[in-house]
């Protein structure tokens, strides 16, 4: 049985072709914004699902222009279904550009087959996605340092303070941080409280890559 995820904008036609084409469709879960036209589209999709006898869950995204927040929410929902062993598909055609991009990001990170529906022909187009597991590209120590920084995002750590917190030599920490900086996972910024000090800041949304 397959669960179809989707993002919905103002046009229900962007999601309906995937509902029609999904074999053994068990449930539809879709995300939409709080815009009145998006809510109208939601009603039409819900009605369509009801007429087919397919259970449907509509989730209103609090901020359809916050890519990282939307990606975090979608990923959490997708993972819940994956853990339950469901087969998943994602239609990323509708919604704001940022919502679609958030869904695309989740599909890449979780390896979910994604489709787009052509704006004029309403034909489904499968996207050539392959799962990218970034976490595996980092060493365990790099992952630890990054996870620690993400967990303590509101705190300010210098390189030395970070080395002390994780119990490694500062030269070792310097090595790991240089690697993380080279791939854009962290940034060094001036401490607003002390301009002479550099603090280590994780890149926005990097927690999504850690899995």
């Amino acid at each position: 049985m397959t669960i179809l995820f989707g993002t919905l904008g103002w046009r229900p036609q962007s999601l309906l072709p995937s509902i029609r084409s999904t074999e053994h469709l068990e449930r539809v879960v879709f995300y939409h914004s709080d815009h009145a036209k998006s809510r109208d589209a939601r009603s039409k999709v819900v009605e369509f699902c009801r007429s087919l006898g397919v259970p449907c869950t509509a989730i209103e995204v609090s901020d359809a222009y916050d890519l990282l927040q939307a990606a975090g929410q979608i990923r959490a929902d997708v993972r819940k279904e994956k853990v339950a062993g469901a087969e998943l598909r994602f239609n990323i055609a509708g919604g704001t550009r940022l919502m679609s991009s958030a869904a695309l990001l989740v599909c890449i990170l979780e390896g979910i087959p994604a489709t787009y529906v052509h704006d004029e022909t309403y034909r489904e187009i499968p996207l050539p996605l392959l799962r990218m597991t970034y976490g595996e590209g980092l060493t365990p120590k790099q992952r630890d340092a990054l996870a620690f920084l993400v967990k303590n995002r509101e705190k300010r750590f210098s390189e030395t303070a970070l080395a002390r917190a994780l119990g490694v030599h500062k030269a070792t920490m310097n090595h790991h941080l240089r690697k993380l900086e080279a791939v854009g996972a962290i940034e060094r910024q001036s401490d607003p409280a002390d301009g002479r000090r550099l603090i280590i800041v994780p890149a926005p949304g990097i927690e999504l890559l850690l899995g």
Partner: protein
Amino acid sequence: MDLRTLIATIGFDERHVLPSLRLLPYDRLVLVGGRDSFRSAGFRRLRALEPDLEAVRVDAFDLGDCLESIETWIREARATGPVRISATGGTKILTMAALLAAFHEGVEAWYCDPDPVRLPVLRGVGLAQAFVPAERAVMQLLRGRTSLDRFLALVVGRGFARRTVFAAVRSLAAKGLIEQVLESGRTVLRPTPRFVLLRDHFRPEPGKA
């Protein structure tokens, strides 16, 4: 000196691109858009601001075309310095293609409309890194329909164990990149359309002359 390239997607309204130009420093600007975008008044105004910009025309409703063009330009630009993608303007398909290309090639991707949002893409970590060496060898060597036995011999000749190659073939089949079919009692391997779209990522790096 490194030449910083900004590859930005563009539609009819140049105002969606302007925040990217202001916030993402560049030495070379490449705009990717549909045919009609480059005939628009918005593009003419942008050209007046940036006479040296390079315009790349794509079919903005064809994901494959957009993806291939952007990836080609990323590879070309990467040889001269760092590359950034701004996926703010243009059709949604163009945006999706730009983001996919950023992930596939491991380059920074941004939205600036108007506030800058950087997507979590690791620089320099591209699609090929998601494959083990035997899978990469299979992707490099498979050209078209070929018998499994003959192909195994070819890859084994590159120093891989037969069992490793088998595992790689099975893994690529599970990823939807190759198909194994039975023809006249023989197993034949053939690449899928997805394989063709992604093959360029597995080209061997040029070695020393």
